[in-house]
Structures are given as structure tokens and as C-alpha cells.
């Protein structure tokens, strides 16, 4: 087992010694800072509430109602303001002081950047085997007292260790940036969210974990797919291309095929597990258990195919 960890150490070393990896981290950091600037400048409407928050909320509600009265009973303003009023009333009824925008909420808003991490993890996963072919180093790797299975799985694991490191980086860096720009709300702040069953007062951390967690499903599946493609075709560009296309376009495929009943068996129809939380299921009758099973079956199939190809293949001369 210690050898397995040493192999993962080797793989991470090879990932992190390359400049392209640092470019990934710098890009992600830049996106976070850019997002903070944008939020700071555009979201001046994010009111800060003082100790007089009850009066402030009531004033807000009056303002919202005036706006509704100005409309003819329909449209965006009516819906939006209606929701805001309901939310404000929830605060007032339950005597909860609204949480001012800060580092935690900023971090939560950055959950969308997990797609960027997915993209980078796909790039790493697509290259981890095929690069060894391109560098001509695979032969030096396989003539060691380590089975090909171990080499393959140490590489696969390393890809996800990389993804995890990037995820931690995103969260920590967002918290830091958020604290500087918007202030820190405390160590375990609670805030109000709107769910299918109405408003709830919940800790941000649990919301943060679930919202990042749902997005990680896509990361895991697309990276594993890219890993498999690059193992089969020894071509990282192809794997990156397919991986990113499906990462972005999986929903479109599901959309096109949605008139067929069998669409529910397609991987992409099952990637968004959030559909069971919102209750907005893609095909009637799909359950969380069904989707999780579907995902696991795909995941294992991708791994078995990669494993079969990698362990059985003759390593011939470079360029052949």
C-alpha cells in the first residue's frame, strides 16, 4: 500500500511541477477575484441591515408593494417582488436578522466555478496516461516491479486528488477573497433559503457542501470518461474535446432525446442529482436510487474498459 501512495506522490509531482498546472490555479484565482469585483460593483442593491433591521425590512416591503402596484399585475417585477416580500416576512415572523452578504455567501455563489475545475480536471485526466505515451516515458514506467493495474489506478486516483486540491483551493481562496471584499460572517453562519417546502433557516456550510457536491458528480463522471478515452486512444486532445463537450452539452443531448422514454438510461440524464431535491425530475418515475445506480454502473464500466485496454495492450515503439 505504501508503494501505491508513493506512486500517487510521483504523479502529483509530475502534475504540479509543470507550469501549465499553475496557470490553471492562477486562472481560477483570477476568476474568483473578478467575480468579487463584479459582485461588489453590481450588487450595491444588496442592502446591509443594521440593528434596526425590522424597520428596514418593513420599509423594503412597502417599497416592493408600491412597485407592484405600478405594474398591471403580471411580469417579472411582480413575481420577484412578491418573493422578496415573502422572504422578508419570514424574517420578521421568525425574528431572524437577515445575514449580510459576506465571505460564505460569496463562496456559495462561486459553486458555479466547479465547472471550471471540472474542465481542468478533465485536462489532467485526459493527459495523465497519454502524456506518458507522448513523452516516451511509459516504457520506463512499466518495466518496474509494479503491476500495470497499480500504475493505472494510482494515476486515476491522482487525477481526483488533483481535483480535490483544486476544490479546496477554490473554497479557501473564495473565503479569503470574500472576507476582504465583503467581510466574514462568522464560523458557522445560518441564512434563509427558499426550498420547495418554503423558506428555511439553515447553516451556510451545509448548503455550501451540497451545492458543491451536486456539481462534483459531473466532474467525476466526465473526468472518468476522458480518462477512459485517453487510455484507449492515447490522445489527450480527443479526450479533452469529448470531455468538455459532454460536460457542457450533456443537457442538450438529453434535451434532444427527451421525447424517447429510454433517455432516462443515458448517463447525462442522471448526472444532475439536484433534480430530486427540487422535485423537477426529467422523466416521470425516475428516482434518486435509479440515478445513483446508473452513475455507478457507468463509472465502473469506464474504469473496467480503461483497465482492460491498459493492461492488455502491447507497448510498441513511440510514434507507431
Amino acid at each position: 500500500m505504501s508503494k501505491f501512495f508513493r506512486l500517487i506522490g510521483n504523479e502529483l509531482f509530475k502534475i504540479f511541477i509543470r507550469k501549465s498546472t499553475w496557470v490553471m490555479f492562477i486562472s481560477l484565482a483570477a476568476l474568483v477575484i473578478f467575480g468579487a469585483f463584479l459582485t461588489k460593483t453590481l450588487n450595491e442593491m444588496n442592502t446591509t441591515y443594521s440593528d434596526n433591521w425590522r424597520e428596514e425590512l418593513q420599509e423594503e416591503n412597502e417599497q416592493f408593494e408600491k412597485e407592484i402596484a405600478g405594474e398591471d399585475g403580471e411580469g417579472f417585477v411582480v413575481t420577484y417582488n412578491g418573493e422578496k416580500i415573502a422572504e422578508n416576512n419570514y424574517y420578521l415572523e421568525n425574528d431572524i436578522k437577515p445575514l449580510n452578504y459576506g465571505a460564505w455567501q460569496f463562496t456559495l455563489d462561486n459553486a458555479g466555478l466547479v465547472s471550471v475545475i471540472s474542465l481542468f480536471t478533465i485536462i489532467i485526466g485526459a493527459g495523465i496516461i497519454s502524456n506518458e505515451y507522448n513523452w516516451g516515458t511509459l516504457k520506463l514506467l512499466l518495466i518496474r516491479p509494479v503491476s500495470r493495474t497499480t500504475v493505472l489506478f494510482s494515476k486515476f486516483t491522482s487525477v481526483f486528488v488533483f481535483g480535490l486540491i483544486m476544490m479546496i483551493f477554490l473554497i479557501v481562496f473564495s473565503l479569503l477573497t470574500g472576507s476582504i471584499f465583503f467581510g466574514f460572517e462568522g464560523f458557522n453562519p445560518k441564512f434563509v433559503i427558499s426550498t420547495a417546502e418554503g423558506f428555511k433557516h439553515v447553516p451556510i456550510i451545509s448548503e455550501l457542501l451540497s451545492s458543491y457536491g451536486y456539481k462534483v458528480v459531473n466532474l467525476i463522471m466526465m473526468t472518468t470518461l476522458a480518462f477512459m478515452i485517453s487510455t484507449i486512444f492515447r490522445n489527450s486532445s480527443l479526450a479533452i474535446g469529448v470531455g468538455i463537450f459532454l460536460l457542457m452539452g450533456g443537457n442538450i443531448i438529453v434535451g434532444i432525446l427527451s421525447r424517447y422514454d429510454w433517455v432516462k438510461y443515458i448517463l447525462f440524464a442522471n448526472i444532475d442529482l439536484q433534480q430530486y431535491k427540487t422535485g423537477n425530475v426529467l422523466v416521470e418515475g425516475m428516482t434518486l436510487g435509479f440515478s445513483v445506480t446508473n452513475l455507478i454502473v457507468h463509472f465502473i464500466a469506464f474504469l473496467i474498459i480503461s483497465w482492460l485496454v491498459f493492461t492488455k495492450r502491447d507497448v510498441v515503439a513511440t510514434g507507431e
Partner: protein
Amino acid sequence: MKDVALQLINLKKTINKKEIIKGISLQVNQGEVYGLIGPNGAGKTTTIRMIVGLMNMTDGDIKILGQSIRLNFSDSIRNVGAIVENPEFYPFMTGMQNLKHFAKMYDHLSEERIKEVVSLLGLEKVIHQKVKTYSLGMRQRLGIAQAILHKPKVLILDEPTNGLDPAGIREIREYIRKLADEEHVAVIISSHLLSEIELICDRIGIIQHGELISERMVDEPEVDENHHSKVIFDVKEFEQAQGIFNELQIPFEVDKHRLIAEMNREKIPSVIKMFVERDISIFGVTAVKASLEDQFLELTGGNVIE
């Protein structure tokens, strides 16, 4: 030391229904340097790739210190070090980082051992530079370094002196000899430089069309009855000597004042005796030892050498 280090048993490889290796059996003893030569596409590289486990064998077996690589890959390959084709490394890492990377794939390989190997191959000056700045010769040395890090009992070198300067070639040759003689490492070398193989190997095997067509000791004298080599006679009585060759039905050529006869070396004494009996003055008789290259070309029909 006559213990077998490496054994190929009726090794076969079929790719796309085409038999590339048609049953090669050979063995290399501990402390022996074995040269593998053959023309392009003969199957040398395929054989080497099967020995190190990069290609699967179709049939037969390969044993390293008696252990089958088919049945027990990790335990048998532990005793093998190899350079397969060009030594390629991670270009963005230093020589030292590359060596450490491969060292981690073995158990109990100390930092001291890495340093020892680095100084052995004279890489101290460049070891902390990135490999992409290395010349081919330096990469070749680093290639040998990674192959001997774990003190293998079987060392497989594909074109080990490729790209080395003459002084470097000599050093490496001496080092390989030392490994074989002092540490009883079995060394298998494939090379296109036949003179190289001749200088370093104890024994050679010639591969052609996926078969081992000939195996011989390098310094083995010519004992083959049917083998004719060139013998140069430097004599005074030119015409008389030619008469004798005609008489004995020995083909010959005239080169200025020398006669070059094609004959079996076994016959040389009797020819000399005849010359003496007929009062022919002999200044010198030289049996030209056919170089390995001549033998090789002869055996393989003058194919282009890889």
C-alpha cells in the same frame, strides 16, 4: 559462475495473425555479456520488449533467475534493468527528479545509491538541470543510470552507445564489462554497431525473420569444416605458387605481389608444407579472421543493418 540469469523458452509472438517471433530459445548466464544483432525488422526489439514485459508473449516463456515473468511479473522484473530504444525522460524535470521518480517504484532504494550511480556515470554536473537541456549522450548516461539504480541481475541495453562520444563509449563499455565481471550481471545488448558488440560481448546471437539463426562465442576460432576464410600468402615465386593453388583447386586472387586464397584454415599447414617442399620462399602467411560484420552479412545475406 554458470548460473542462468535469463532464459527464453520457445518464445513466440503473433501480431495480426503474422508470426513476428517464431520460437526463440536462448539463455544468458550470470556475468555474461550477450549481443543480439539482426537486420531491420528481424524481431530484436520485439524480443526485448517481451523480456521487459512491455509486450505480451503469444507463446513460450521468459524466466529471470528462474522466475517466469508471465506468472510472477513484479518479482521477476525486480531483477531487470533496461533501456528500451531511446532513453526518454520527463523533459520538464531535472535528471535527479527523474531518477528519484523511478527509484520510488522500488522498495528500499536509498538516496546514497542514487548519488553513487550519478557519480558512476559522471552526471554530477548536469544532474540538477532539466532533462530537456541534455544532449543525447547525457540522456544515454541517464538512461543507463535509471537501468542500474536497483542493482539488477539482468541488464538489457538497446543501443547503449548511441549518441555517445568515443571516450564515452569506451567508458560505458568498461563499465558494462565491470558489471558483468564483478557483480555477475547478465547483460543483453542489441546494437547496430557490430564492432561494438564484438568488443564487448562474450557471445552473440543473430536474429533474422524472427528466428535465432546463429549463436557463437565472439573469440571462438573458425572450426567449421565448410567455412572458408581469406588467407594471404606473401611469397617470392609467384607463378609457382599459383600453380600449386591450381593443383589443389583452391580459388585465389592476385593482389600486387601477394596471393589471397580462399580456403579453410585447417588446410593452411599443408599448403605451407607444399610451398616449402617446392622451394618457394615465404615472407608471410596471414589468415584473415573474418570480422563479425562479414559473418553477419554472410549469414543474413547482406541485409541492411538496423
